[in-house]
């Protein structure tokens, strides 16, 4: 089934980047406000799904030649690694560390190890969602 959807294809190319940027904003907003890795990841995979709708699965796979299951693995390693880092310091599992750092361009920035964990969640969510969608979509 191939319809003439030039409008959808052209707009989705632009909208894709807007959604991804918003997803990244949500991801960083999770630091002290509502947001975080889970929503960010869902939003990013939503953007990729938009591309899937506009184009077809082959084009998108060519654009993102990623094995999403490996992405899940990397994300899990991030998350588990962050949590297990506390073992090195002999403090209870999953205890986070945070503090303020002055960076050259950004100025005073607060850093938190929860961010690393959230990166893991972000990757896992993208990986899982895209794996599911590809599994159902591929066989058509």
């Amino acid at each position, binding site marked *: 089934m191939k319809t003439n959807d030039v409008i959808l294809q052209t707009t989705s190319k632009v909208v894709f980047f807007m959604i991804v940027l918003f997803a990244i904003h949500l991801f960083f907003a999770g630091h*002290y406000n*509502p947001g975080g890795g*889970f929503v960010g990841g869902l939003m990013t995979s939503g953007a990729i799904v938009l591309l899937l709708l506009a184009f077809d699965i082959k084009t998108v796979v060519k654009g993102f030649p990623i094995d999403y299951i490996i992405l899940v693995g990397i994300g899990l390693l991030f998350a588990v690694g962050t949590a297990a880092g506390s073992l090195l310091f002999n403090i209870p599992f999953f205890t986070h560390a945070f503090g303020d750092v002055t960076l050259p361009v950004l100025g005073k920035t607060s850093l938190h190890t929860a961010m690393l964990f959230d990166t893991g969640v972000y990757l896992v969510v993208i990986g*899982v969602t895209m794996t*599911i969608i590809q*599994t*159902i979509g591929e*066989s058509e």
Partner: protein
Amino acid sequence: MEILMSLVIGALLASAVYLMLSKSLLRIIIGTGLLSHGAHLLIITMGGLKRGAAPLLGEEAAAYVDPLPQALILTAIVISFGVTAFFLVLAYRAYQELGTDNMDEMRGNEAND
């Protein structure tokens, strides 16, 4: 408000049961989705429906809402999201392999083995 929520939850659970008792696999999956929606709404009702600020230190509001039910719901939603997705893929595979989505034809009796 609680009464309204109870009615909504009741309606959701009733529709879930109705759908799950049907024979079509897809309806059953939608039924499980509604069932978990009902359960999630129940958590938020059970935590108490209150007005208040988000429980963050900077808010300095007079009243805060209980963050725990929300955390529980988020966890439960993620889990039911994963299970539903898996269930859908499985149902699709089963439909391909068995050639039916009718639960009556998926019985495990002697004739079908």
